[in-house]
């Protein structure tokens, strides 16, 4: 390999057919002459070298045997050299760091020599050793291309905002399940907003039997084993549900506040009493109608109950997982409005518990959050709630549903394959890496391969093949032909 060109933080390296380098691989450009310096670069694209005369040769040799054939008397075997040159490649690489006397530096202000410098592959194990990833709480994600295990540290997710994204069936949920199990394995409380009921079986092995996590995975299904009494709720949370999930106008919200305070003072906060109070409340008829329509929405959601024995005490649930466990909120078969009601309640309760220091911190995994998270919550989650101790991981196959400012603040991005330019454009806004790397590498990632960006890998993007899990991980997609047969 020979150094050919450098522009900004991009270097172009000439590589020959016998030298194997692929997208995502790291190369070390060593220049020992002045100060024993080296550049750590990563291949982001592999192109054919633009050798002169190639078009003429291809056109000349692109004959099908029917119209033209022949042979070459080439005793000096120049053709083998020609083939070698024709197959020469240009590796487009990004400079990730500079190495001077064994010390890493993010700057690359110097230029290695074209003639003296040597270029060699940098195995992932050597890279990880160089960047010194902390392994006090290792989370094994899988293997790199050179079949060395890749561990990140669980602390790299602590207090961080993470995004897991990729197109359908590339392995996003698989990775997030792996992260969930690893975190709860280290005694961390995890809350999963499970849109498709995929996490409900985390406590079961692939053979259907209970696994080591079964006692620590608690599945809450709204209107089944997850119902709450109005008396458990705070006015602020209820108003959030009414205003944000059920679009209650401001005037009506003010009347509702009075009704709620009236019932609260008399300790009669039940659905039945709430209905009666709205019916008998002295107010404008339009306001009453508005309140009634929201009241029936609450009733019909099935999430609220007047029976104290049916009501779930979320605080107790959190206490159960506080020293390592997952609270999976199964939102499958739940309507959009009901999902929003459940999530508003859950997040409100979570913040309450955290502000009262009843919980130390929580890792929140939100699948396709745009389907239940109201607009104003996004900023709230990545800023205010993070300070309370809610460390969120967004999992989505629609990267454009996550706003640009969220990408910019993401500490770790677990990026799976995308082929759509629009999707790649959205993901490339992540601040942890340049857009070219994201677009070029993500486009060619095979299934179950993930590009890790961010603090977990000390900003050295690494491609990893996510390891298999011995749990029931598959989403229960109802198939037409399977059932028919």
């Amino acid at each position, binding site marked *: 390999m020979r150094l050919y060109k450098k522009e900004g933080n991009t270097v172009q390296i000439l590589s020959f057919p016998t030298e194997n380098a692929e997208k995502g691989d790291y190369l070390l450009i060593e220049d020992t002459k002045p100060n024993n310096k080296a550049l750590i670069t990563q291949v982001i694209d592999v192109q054919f070298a633009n*050798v*002169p*005369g*190639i078009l*003429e*040769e291809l056109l*000349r040799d692109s004959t099908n*045997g*029917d*119209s*033209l*054939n*022949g*042979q*070459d*008397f*080439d*005793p*000096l*075997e*120049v*053709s083998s*050299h*020609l083939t*070698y*040159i*024709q197959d020469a490649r240009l590796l487009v690489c990004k400079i990730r760091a500079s190495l001077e006397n064994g010390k890493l530096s993010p700057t690359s202000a110097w230029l290695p020599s074209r003639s003296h410098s040597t270029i060699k592959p940098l195995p992932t194990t050597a890279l990880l050793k160089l960047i010194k990833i902390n392994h006090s709480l290792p989370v094994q994600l899988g293997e790199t291309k050179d079949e060395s295990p890749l561990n990140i540290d669980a602390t790299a997710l602590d207090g961080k905002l993470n995004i897991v994204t990729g197109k359908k069936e590339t392995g996003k949920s698989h990775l997030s399940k792996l992260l969930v199990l690893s975190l709860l394995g280290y005694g961390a409380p995890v809350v999963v907003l499970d849109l498709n009921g995929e996490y409900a079986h985390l406590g079961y092995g692939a053979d259907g039997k209970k696994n080591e996590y079964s006692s620590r995975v608690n599945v809450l299904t709204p209107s089944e084993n997850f119902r709450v009494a109005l008396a458990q709720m705070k006015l602020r949370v209820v108003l959030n549900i009414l205003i944000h999930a059920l679009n209650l106008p401001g005037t009506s919200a003010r009347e509702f506040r009075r009704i709620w305070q009236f019932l609260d003072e008399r300790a009669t906060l039940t659905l039945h009493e709430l209905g009666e109070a709205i019916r008998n409340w002295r107010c404008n008829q339009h306001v009453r109608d508005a309140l009634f329509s929201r009241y029936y929405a609450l009733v019909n959601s099935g999430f609220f109950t007047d029976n104290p024995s049916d009501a779930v005490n979320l605080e107790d649930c959190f206490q159960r997982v506080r020293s390592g466990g997952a609270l999976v909120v199964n939102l499958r078969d739940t309507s959009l409005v009901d999902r929003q009601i459940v999530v508003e309640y859950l997040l409100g309760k979570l913040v309450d518990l955290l502000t009262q220091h009843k919980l130390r911190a929580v890792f929140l995994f939100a699948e396709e959050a745009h389907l239940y998270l109201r607009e104003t919550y996004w900023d709230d989650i990545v800023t205010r709630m993070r300070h309370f101790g809610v460390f969120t991981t967004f999992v989505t196959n629609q990267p454009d549903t996550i706003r640009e400012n969220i990408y910019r603040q993401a500490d770790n991005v677990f990026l799976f394959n995308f082929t759509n330019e629009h999707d790649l454009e959205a993901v490339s806004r992540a601040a942890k890496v340049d857009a070219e790397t994201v677009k070029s590498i993500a486009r060619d990632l095979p299934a179950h391969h993930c590009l890790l960006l961010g603090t977990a890998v000390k900003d050295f993007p690494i491609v990893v093949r996510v390891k298999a899990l011995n749990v029931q991980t598959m989403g229960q997609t109802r198939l037409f032909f399977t059932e028919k047969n």
Partner: protein
Amino acid sequence: MIQQTQYTPTTSKYNFPQSTLEDTTLPTRFIELSLRSIKTIQNNEAALYQPYEAMTDETTEEVTPIFQGQTKLRLNTIPLKPSHQETPVVAIDVSSIKIGETSAGILLAIRGAIVSKKQRQSHYHYLRIGPFPFHITEQNKKEIYQLFRQYSLDTLAPNTTSTPSLIHMQTRITTLLERWLQTGVATQSQNTLILWDGSLTAGTSDSPTHIMMQLLETARNRLNTVLAFSKITRLRLSGQRLTDLIETSKPPCLLQIEGYPTAPTNTIHFLGNIHVAKLTQGNCSFRLDTDRQLPTEQAVEAIQRLMGNDQLSESYPETLRLAHIYSTFTANEVIAIQRLLAQTHGIKTVTRPNIRRLLFGPYGKGPDGA
């Protein structure tokens, strides 16, 4: 003995092309000489200075007769009609390229191509010979030139003419390799149309008249017909290009020129009848030489057979076009040869400072830099 015209189909097994040339002595000597000449660089200085633009040579320069209003000069337009009687067509072309310079001499590569169109088949077959890199120095140029002459002109007689200067060696040895290929094809083919690139002009040091006459006779004896196409012609009649005179005639046609001296100088001889050929519709017409010893009818018949047996594009035969394409060097091939030299002989290519650029900056582009 008067040669009898015979165009009856013959047994194809005697016809060229075969998979290889029967006589491989020259290629074998080529390799030896090529390798030996390159070793001289190693002994001297392992650096090859790359020329700024690859100088290619596509064989002989045209020796142009000057028609200065001779009173006897006659122009005769002959209409042509394709003849579909099956006849094999074989074309030969040779290219050479200057790979670079050394402190002792020049390094060039040479390659030949023979393309044939078989009877009853629509496909073409090619045989490429080379490339052979040669390091030519003042010390070895005589040896190299003699070898080429010996094999190409089939003569052991010592060369009475002096060895050309280094500058002209590229042209000379390219011509000599071409002669060797032409001889090979002429002796191994039968009843075949043989297409040459260039003209049937003899009398130069690498195309002695008696050798050229012998070569044409060999071809005739095996019932072959040699047709020589010049891509660029400087033929003029009283200042006007001859190829322009045919513009008024309806193609396909042949402009026959008669009445010019066959030996314009004491040494130069035109062994062919000179025509201007416009074989298809289009803008191009070419100088086409046919063997002077063939009757006009036979020459015209041969051209008509060419029209019926080969594809023509802009009046140029596809077989000859392919021979040119397959012998020509691409820039990539030059790099491949330089790599071969670097790998096998440790010869590094170095780009010399461009004096024009140094002196004249952006104005120092040279003739091709505009």
